[in-house]
């Protein structure tokens, strides 16, 4: 056998040029021949002779097979390539939490450990290629110096994504095969593994096909109180109760009672107390609230901040709640049945967006129904004044008095006037429709409630001359009187409406807007108002000084060309009174309504002209108002595009609730104002949870075939790793064995000896 210093391995090989099947066939033939020969010797009486002859034949056959296979030795030159072991270190913000009593952060504990096991890692590196990467959640190479010096800041923890990224490097061919992963983290995943290792997440871990050994770092004994989650619908219906569920976790607060407070833009809405039973306890507290206004509002749930808490930013959490209207709830109070009331009722009853509650005065004490037993013979019910003007008043979106005044003292509402006036001032809507009992001679004055009416009676007798109401310049732009699309079409419609048979004489109060007036009659030197509107406190009120708007519904159809002016007029009036967002000329929306800490606040403003066409090239100004301080902290300006839309952004403000207040103008013409709410969160998902999730780390190790450990640890444990190193062949040289003279001599000797003995024994 020849050896060379350049070759460092060898193996036995067959050097026969024959193909495998030929070798197998010849070998089979050889074996058959030997077998037949042995069969021929079976009648040999002497066992010793038989044994000798068989042995000789078998040895000869083996020798022949040896020559057939042409054995040789192959000397080889081999090289060993190392597989990869990845060390992944979590660089998310939660790794900055303190991990030991000396105040070192979790990241620093990991750095210290890796430094302590550096010699063992060095030894491991002789068999495997080691690399250390940080993930936040993107992978990036990391040194222990950087681990010590640079605080972790990643906004999210996504363990599965990091593991996949490491595995993908192997599949892309950019890296060697992976033998194992060492994962250092606190396990506070807020991505796919947040809910644990189950379902698709579990399958994804199994698909890695590489053992992941986990090293959990962090201290369980952190003292921390956190509002972990708030569960509430995205929107609520006004005056409908909703439930807000708040999850509060306390670590290190066992046995303590904690107050939980719910605020709406600084105002306390509700508060409850919870008892934390154990050192690590999660309590759920529910708040029921009934929003009383439509719009978007920022609510904040907060628990107190205690000393030595690991993180204080997670003690409060804000959310934005949009409050909308389901149906407009209308209270219609009618002084006496008239055709005006009949057509208004017909319209409101058929509108699916209106929930109508009505009360008519069908009989006064001066009326004589001529019945012996009123209770049994009349369908009349007592007028529930206390219920509708007191208890249930604030359940209505709009209150309509249609020719409602009273000559009967039993129907006096003087004791409720205060409440009605306050209802309007605090955001309610009121409509006074004329007739003799409202502004006419038969009226009873409402000294307190009357302050909320945009028009006041003059005491003059009503005019009974037919006339056609005239649209004022303000009415030409107002949504109530827009009975057609476009200002000129609307004006034309008003001039085509039938004459009305008379009106009450009133005068507008200071600040009221007159939308329709009398073309000929005057009060105090100005055209007598027919329709007046105004904002009263947070509410709105309107007054119509005729009781014949039903002419627009009925009489206008006598010529056979039906219109919807009547429906549109009253529909617009209701929507304006309840502040329907679609009727505003300026719509302001915070986009998104909740913002993560450190992200900018975006606001979208949509401006429309008074005829509701998009207001292009309008100048928009947006203020960002801090609800906490009630101060404007920033202002942005912009210009609307062809679609009337503009978007502005504010640099990231401090956490807390804010209102964005916008105004727009086109040239000299103001286009209105609007506002919205936005919540800037105090903590992102990383800092809201200070706990160590050792269970998740253990599950990851178990599913992938790795092992789980907990820092601090002494030395590098024997972690499971895949596959021995791969051997690759470089140069090689074959050395034949079969052509040695002594092998040939042995074959000849065996064949010769067998032949001699066969002859001796008489077989040849």
């Amino acid at each position, binding site marked *: 056998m020849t050896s060379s210093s350049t070759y460092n391995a060898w193996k036995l090989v067959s050097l026969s040029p024959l193909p495998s099947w030929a070798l197998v066939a010849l070998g089979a033939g050889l074996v058959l021949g030997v077998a037949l020969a042995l069969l021929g010797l079976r009648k040999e009486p002497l066992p010793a002779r038989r044994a000798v002859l068989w042995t000789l034949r078998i040895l000869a056959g083996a020798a022949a097979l040896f020559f057939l296979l042409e054995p040789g030795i192959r000397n080889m030159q081999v090289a060993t390539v190392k597989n990869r072991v990845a060390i992944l270190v979590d660089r998310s913000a939660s790794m900055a939490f303190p991990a030991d009593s000396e105040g070192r952060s979790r990241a620093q504990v990991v750095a210290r450990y890796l430094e302590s096991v550096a010699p063992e890692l060095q030894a491991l590196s002789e068999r495997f290629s080691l690399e250390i990467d940080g993930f936040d959640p993107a992978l990036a190479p990391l040194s222990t110096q950087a681990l010590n010096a640079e605080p972790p800041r990643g906004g999210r923890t996504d363990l599965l994504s990091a593991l996949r990224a490491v595995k993908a490097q192997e599949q892309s061919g950019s890296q060697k095969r992976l033998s194992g992963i060492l994962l250092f983290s606190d396990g506070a995943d807020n991505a796919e593994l947040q809910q644990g290792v189950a379902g698709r997440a579990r399958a994804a871990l199994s698909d890695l096909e590489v053992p992941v050994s986990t090293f959990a770092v962090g201290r369980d004994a952190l003292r921390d109180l956190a509002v972990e989650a708030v569960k509430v619908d995205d929107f609520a219906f006004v005056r409908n109760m909703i439930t807000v569920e708040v999850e509060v976790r306390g670590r290190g607060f066992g046995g303590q009672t904690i107050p939980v407070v719910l605020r709406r833009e600084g105002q306390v809405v509700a508060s409850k107390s919870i008892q934390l039973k154990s050192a690590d306890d999660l309590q759920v507290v529910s708040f029921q609230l009934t929003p009383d206004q439509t719009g978007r509002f920022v609510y904040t749930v907060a628990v107190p901040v205690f000393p030595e808490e690991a993180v204080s930013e997670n003690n409060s959490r804000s959310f934005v709640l949009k409050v909308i209207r389901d149906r407009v709830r209308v209270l219609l109070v009618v002084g006496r049945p008239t055709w005006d009331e009949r057509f208004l009722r017909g319209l409101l*009853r058929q509108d699916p967006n209106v929930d109508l509650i009505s009360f008519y005065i069908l009989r006064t004490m001066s009326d004589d129904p001529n019945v012996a037993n009123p209770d049994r013979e009349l369908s009349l019910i007592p007028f529930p004044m206390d219920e509708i003007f007191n208890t249930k008043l604030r359940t209505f979106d709009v209150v309509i008095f249609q020719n409602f005044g009273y*000559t009967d003292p039993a129907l006096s509402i003087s004791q409720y006037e205060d409440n009605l006036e306050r209802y309007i001032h605090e955001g309610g809507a009121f409509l006074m429709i004329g007739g003799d009992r409202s502004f006419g001679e038969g009226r009873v004055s409402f000294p307190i409630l009357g302050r909320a009416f945009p028009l006041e009676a003059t005491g003059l007798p009503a005019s009974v001359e037919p006339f056609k109401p005239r649209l004022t310049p303000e009415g030409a732009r107002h949504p109530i009187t827009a009975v057609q699309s476009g200002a000129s079409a609307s004006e034309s419609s008003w001039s085509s409406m039938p004459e009305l048979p008379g009106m009450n004489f009133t005068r507008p109060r200071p600040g009221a807007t007159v939308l329709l007036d009398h073309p000929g009659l005057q009060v105090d030197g100005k055209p007598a108002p027919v329709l007046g509107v105004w904002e009263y406190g947070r509410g709105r009120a309107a007054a119509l000084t005729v009781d014949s708007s039903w002419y627009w519904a009925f009489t206008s159809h006598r010529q056979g060309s039906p219109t919807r002016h009547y429906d549109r007029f009253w529909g617009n009036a209701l929507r304006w009174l309840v502040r329907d967002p679609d009727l505003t000329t300026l719509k302001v929306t915070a986009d998104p309504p909740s913002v993560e800490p450190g992200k900018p606040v975006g606001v979208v403003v949509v401006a429309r002209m008074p005829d509701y066409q998009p207001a292009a090239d309008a100048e928009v100004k947006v203020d960002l108002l801090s609800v906490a301080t009630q101060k404007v902290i920033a202002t942005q300006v912009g210009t609307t595009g062809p679609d009337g839309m503009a978007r502005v952004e504010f640099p990231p403000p401090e956490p807390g609730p804010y209102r964005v207040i916008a105004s727009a103008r086109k040239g000299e013409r103001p286009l209105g104002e609007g506002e919205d709410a936005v919540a800037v969160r105090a903590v992102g998902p990383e800092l809201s949870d200070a706990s160590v999730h050792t269970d998740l780390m253990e599950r990851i190790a178990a599913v992938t075939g790795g092992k789980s450990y907990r820092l601090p640890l002494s030395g590098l444990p024997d972690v499971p790793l895949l596959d021995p190193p791969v051997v690759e062949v470089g140069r090689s040289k074959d050395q034949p064995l079969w052509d040695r003279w002594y092998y040939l001599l042995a074959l000849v000797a065996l064949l010769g000896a067998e032949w001699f003995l066969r002859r001796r024994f008489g077989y040849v």
Partner: protein
Amino acid sequence: MTRRRYIGARMARWMPSRRAALAGLCGAVASAVWPRTARAFGDSSRFVPAVLQHRGKWDARLSGLRRLAWELGRRTSVEMVPDARPLPISSPKLFEYPFVYLGGDGGLPALSEDEVENLRRYLTFGGFMLVDANDGSDGGGFDADLRREVQRLLPQSPLTPIPSEHVIFKSFFLLDSAPGRLLRKPQLESCNLGKRAAVVYSQNDLAGAWSRDESGEFELEVTPGGESQRELAIRLGINLCMYALCLDYKDDAVHLPLIMNKRR
């Protein structure tokens, strides 16, 4: 007697007593403080029944309608004009009177196309028509002609019986029956447009029970129930007016429990 004393004596005859003066002063103060009786904006704000003029005998019961309006004003809070305004069926003025009465004693000649078109539009856009067979016919006379004309007028909304739980029977008075001067048919019939009864038809000559003569006496006898039946007919008339004015107000949920309680 001196002149001054004479003048004083003469004046004393004409001066009111102190009691009367005090009463007058109270009255003046009261009228200043207390609202006067309301006057609506002319007739348009009041209930005024219109009567449709057709080419048959349409005016047999005008006094009944005037009486009905008067009873309505007396017994309820509705302000009315005690009148019956005759109007041609094709007149555009129909649209100023959301309540019309169509009665007939004998045949009802076919309406012209213009009349059908106008009346159909009137009913479609919210008008109410009370139809009354003054001759109490059933199968012939006014009844047969009326059914023919209703078929032309509202082919998609035929006459159907009004059930006893309909709001017409509780719109002011609680009623169980629908008598008129006669009680030929126990039920009223209606043509409904959506949920609204646009046409209500009685074969019992309702207005016949309401009619009074010049001296104020009721004109016609009511059979078989006599004066108690007449009172029920007046109440039914008032209920029909209230239905025209208030639609289904008494069907609102807030009224139901009380009404059901009363009916027990």
